């Protein structure tokens, strides 16, 4: 369980996150949606500690993450997996070495054990026979899968995905979405996904938080989003003329 309380963050006197409070439950795919520049990525970076909030709290279960020093944060971070927008695979390492990378640091497993776990993770994301390839030899969808395999290598309790579908075609996007959803349910992970892809929202959104100009404007599920009475959300969801007519906005 991740709990965010009254989170605020500004850059050069511009308020980017304005008093955000929200909770993310285990086994759920929780989505942060909003237009580009709304503050989604900043919120995600604050959650994982890549940037420090100006005020507010982030709790990982009973641990107050925002007040921890770097050493204490490391223990929490070992339970975090993250899939980056551009996959962020290490370009000096093969697919297999990428997945084994966190194991090299945080386990005392033998090379065979690490290889076995890497193969299991790669099989889980339906990516076999690519072990020896370099990230540059993979397609965007394959890179995302390796990113997921690396993120789940150490059985994380929390999984963060920053725009997992960016740059992917709709079919591959759905495959990646379903994979994230399956893994979330299978291992009871608290998953937080940052997206502006409405297909993802409808496909896997157990819990959705809509951010507009740094403020959490609406919270609900994918089944509630179409009937929401939030004007900013409706402007975001129903963009095309046809959709707006169907919604009765025009």
């Amino acid at each position, binding site marked *: 369980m991740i709990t965010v309380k009254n989170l605020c963050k500004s850059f050069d006197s511009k308020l980017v996150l304005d008093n955000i409070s929200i909770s993310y439950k285990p086994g759920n795919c929780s989505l942060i949606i909003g237009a580009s520049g709304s503050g989604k990525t900043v919120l995600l970076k604050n959650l994982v500690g890549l940037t420090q909030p100006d005020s507010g709290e982030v709790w990982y279960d009973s641990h107050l993450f925002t007040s921890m020093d770097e050493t204490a944060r490391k223990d929490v971070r070992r339970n975090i997996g*993250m899939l980056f927008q*551009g996959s962020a695979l290490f*370009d000096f390492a093969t697919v297999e070495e990428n997945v084994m990378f*966190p194991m*090299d640091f945080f386990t005392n497993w033998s090379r065979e054990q690490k290889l076995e776990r890497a193969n299991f993770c790669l099989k889980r994301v339906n990516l076999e026979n690519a072990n020896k390839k370099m990230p540059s030899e993979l397609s965007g969808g394959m890179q995302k899968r390796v990113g997921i395999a690396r993120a789940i290598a150490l059985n994380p309790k929390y999984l*963060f995905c920053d725009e997992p579908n960016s740059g992917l075609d709709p079919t591959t996007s759905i495959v990646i979405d379903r994979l994230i959803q399956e893994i979330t349910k299978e291992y009871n992970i608290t998953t937080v996904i940052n997206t502006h892809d409405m297909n993802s929202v409808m496909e896997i959104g157990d819990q959705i938080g809509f951010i507009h100009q740094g403020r959490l404007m609406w919270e609900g599920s994918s089944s509630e989003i179409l009937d929401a009475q939030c004007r900013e959300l409706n402007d975001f969801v129903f963009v095309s003329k046809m959709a707006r007519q169907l919604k009765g906005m025009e």
Partner: protein
Amino acid sequence: MNLSISNIFESVGDYWLLMKRAFRKPEKWGIFFKQFITESDKLIIGSIPIVALISLFIGAVVVIQTDKNMNNPLIDKMYIGYMARETLVLEFCSTMVALILTGKMGSNIASELGSMRITEQIDAMEIMGINSAGYLIAPKIVSATILSPLIMLMSFIVGLFGGAMVVAILGMISMSQYVTGLQYSFNPWYVSYSMIKMSVFCFIITSVCSYFGYYAKGGSQGVGRSSTKAIVMSCALILVFNYLLTNLLL
């Protein structure tokens, strides 16, 4: 480059904080040593061909120029060897080679780390709970600082060989005169002094270029800007420290 006083203090502070992080106890010594070997191969072994080539020709040119400038018949021609040795050991093999290495090694480090920063690979390591500075920067600094005196020695030997080659080909003096000059009034401390300088210069190159690469921002143009800043700053610091060390050690 913005050279306001507050920016300079901020950069110096950030630099020392980064060095402090880089030299924290490694997560695993085995991984550190593996990286040390990799970086030694890349930074030191990889620099041997270019340093050898330049040293060979500079040694040859120094001998020719010294010969052309020694018209006084009262001065023994063996001084050509003596002058070549002193020029190479005191300045060329440490300061000039360090400036050459700044271009080769420094740009490599700054662009590599800069690319890793903008593609979020460094963020990925941080989220895993890995000390990215310790993993990426410390092995580079340690390998270059410890092993660079060997590069200086190699440059010295190859430079003297280049001089001998010219003596053998052009025959302006006999080989025995050249060798006598090389042995004349030899002060072994000069070699140690040059090795110490080289070690300090390589610490400057690797740490400064790592700093600029590690904090690169703004896409591929930002990486380019960081590399340029890193090389300019390294060269300037090498010249300043050359003066300070010469004052201190000779």
